[in-house]
């Protein structure tokens, strides 16, 4: 039992860290197909990371130690987050220490360090990006928390594995409240991961960037870690979504190792579908004006509140 729990925990972290760039590659490939372009290989993000690790780092002369440690903190926070999200099994030793609210805090920590590091070198673009990132963040976090509260109310716990377990073991029923919150969560996911319509990960226009603007001063291994952490963040968000809205197929409870083995292909199928869905959303939308981001995220919050009301009023 203990061995299996540790095995599950180890597997979750390894799969998340290893497969995150692949998930990003898959989204990029789908985007290219939907735009009638010939697609880069799904392995392209790995090549980029490898290339960056083989370069010499250039660091702005007037930056402090914060600038250098931030990539490790951000990457560490994302890895830790991967450890407490039940993507394949629910018996995770780490989750005793951290529930869903702590997870939101962990993501916020990464954001704060990223923003501080962006401002550290004192360039206009870093500050611009950090400022916009904090604006998006402070609008997205309440919506994300509200999404988690709805799921928590349904299963009477804030522990993510317990929520997933509750939702999988219940007889399959329709929760209208979760349908509303799923919409809200998707919107938060787009905003938090710098995807269209809030940010454009493919842009080369420094004045319009949010996430990329914060990374402009980074190079080599630091940039590789930041890029990897961004891919991991997207992977984590997808897994939070699965845990809350599509928990079926994960090894719930004290499951045997073979249930865990089955959970891997199930996760892969979910990621493939989620990736193509994301690519579709990104292809059919244009980027919003920066000042429309509050409207977008307020809508997300509103959907989450609707979900909460539906749950309280209808008990479903």
């Amino acid at each position, binding site marked *: 039992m203990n061995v299996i729990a540790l095995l599950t925990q180890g597997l979750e972290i390894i799969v998340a860290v290893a497969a995150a760039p692949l998930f990003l590659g898959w989204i990029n490939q789908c985007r290219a197909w939907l735009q*009638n372009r010939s697609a880069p290989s799904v392995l392209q993000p790995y090549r980029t990371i490898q290339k960056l690790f083989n370069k010499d780092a250039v660091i702005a002369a007037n930056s402090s130690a914060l600038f250098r440690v931030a990539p490790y903190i951000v990457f560490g926070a994302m890895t830790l987050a991967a450890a407490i999200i039940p993507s394949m099994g629910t018996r995770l030793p780490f989750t005793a220490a951290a529930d869903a609210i702590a997870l939101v805090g962990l993501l916020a920590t990464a954001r704060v360090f990223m923003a501080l590091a962006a401002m550290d070198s004192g360039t*206009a673009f870093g500050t611009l990006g950090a400022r916009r990132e904090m604006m998006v963040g402070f609008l997205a976090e309440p919506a994300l928390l509200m999404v988690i509260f709805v799921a928590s109310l349904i299963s009477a716990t804030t522990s993510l594995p317990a929520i997933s377990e509750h939702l999988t073991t219940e007889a399959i029923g329709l929760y209208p409240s979760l349908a509303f919150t799923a919409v809200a969560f998707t919107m938060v996911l787009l905003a938090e991961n710098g995807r269209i319509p809030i940010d454009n990960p493919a842009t*080369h226009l*420094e*004045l319009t960037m949010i996430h990329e603007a914060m990374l*402009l001063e980074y190079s080599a291994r630091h940039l590789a870690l930041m890029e990897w952490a961004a891919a991991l963040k997207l992977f984590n968000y997808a897994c939070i979504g699965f845990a809350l809205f599509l928990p079926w197929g994960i090894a719930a409870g004290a499951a045997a190792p073979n249930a865990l083995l089955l959970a891997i292909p199930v996760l892969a199928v979910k990621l493939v579908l989620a990736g193509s869905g994301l690519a579709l959303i990104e292809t059919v*939308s244009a980027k*919003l*004006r920066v000042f*429309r981001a509050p409207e977008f995220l307020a809508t997300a919050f509103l959907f989450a509140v609707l979900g909460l009301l539906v749950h309280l009023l209808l008990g479903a």
Partner: protein
Amino acid sequence: MPVRLWWDLAAPATQAAGMRRLTVDAATWVRAAEEFAAADAHLLALWVARAPNQEGFLIRAAFVAAGAGLILELPIADCDPPYPGLEPFFPAASRMQRAAYDLWGLRATDPDRRPWLRHAAWPEDQYPLRNPAVMAAGTGISEAYRFVRVAGDGVHEIPVGPVHAGIIEPGHFRFSIVGEKVLRLEEHLGYVHKGIERRFTDFPILEGHRLAARVSGDCAVAYAWAYCQALEGMVGMRVPARADWLRALCLELERIANHLGDLGALGNDAGFAFGLAQFSRLKEHLLRANEAAFGQRYLFDTVVPGGLHADLSQSGAHTLGDFLSRLAPEVESLRDIYDEHGGVRDRFVGAGRVAPELAARLGLIGFAGRASARGLDVRIDFPCAPYTDLALRRVTRTAGDVAARVAVRFDEVQESCRLSLHILKSLPSSVHRVECPPPVQGAFGTGLIEGWRGPIFLALEAGAAGAISRCHPHDPSWQNWPVLEHAIIGNIVPDFPLINKSFNLSYSGHDL
């Protein structure tokens, strides 16, 4: 008195249909400019040339209004006080005068005396066009450019460029912003100053079209044609009718290619990458059709003195005709997608608005001008052959925002497709090229061609033994760059790339 009367006074300058030349004194120079401005004339160009006697200099300014084109010449000697600047009447003149000072050392009376084209490539007391021989090496030290500062609570600056995150031409933009709102934008250009005007004098006059085509590569046909028009005007020759028609075909193909590229880029800048993929595909097909028809994707060196480099073959005409008849409906369906996409509309409508009054005051020109109710289209107002025989529809809008410029571009693509197909159908059969003799020393000619961006003006003077003594190519970007500074005011910083792309002005054609 109206422009027409000034025109009646003037002596015909060879070529560029309806363009005349008038030598004036300083007082008349000011009076004429004032009256032209009142008559809503356009300032085409302002440049300096050496006086024929090699003693003094001539400040030249070209204007067009309602079917009349006029070049004013103000003779000036070195010892003279600064000549009267035209900025009060034509704000766009300011940068032209500053550039003229950097290159010739002749000062205008206007207040802005900061260097414009000179960065650090030559010392302040050297003037490369006046005396190329004694040009000292660059100082390497660029003195700080004095940007206009905006003061106030929470106001700060964002310096952008000249090196950008993407691969584009270099230019510096200084934003003064509060939050995300732009209070002021100031451009600093000149980073691609290559000394093209000096380089022209190394070329035999019959070869200069090759350099002209490369002043701004996206207007290769327009510049080469303007050059050839000036040259052919000097020697008083007419090119065969077939060459005229084929030149017009090339010009329209160039217009379509650039509009297609920019329409895609505009979609991309609005985060709608689908548009970029589709328009890039169409543009690439057009470039391949160009190659099949003329042997040149971007039609470099297709227009040559005396006609065209090579005739359009039967098969080439077929390829082009086939493609163009398929292109028009495809562009129309993409236009529907742009028009009906809520997100794209939201980005385009109201962004970067240049109201018609502002456009008139600042002298906005070209297709951007036509999107702000400025009607000038050289193909209609100063038609050279074959535009005299082609019933071209004028495309205008009044809103002056990004959406209006996009609409004008879409309309012009359709109009150019229609025109090109018409040209292909009714091409006169004659030779495509005749020999162009070299002009006599001292001959002066001008060319005026509506490139895709706006009117491209070129003044050419012949030197001894078939050389070029002076060639001044003028890009409409000179007039439109300052307007961009106004278009962005009150918009938010992240909308700048979109607004900038909707104009897509030339750096190379401006910096020379």
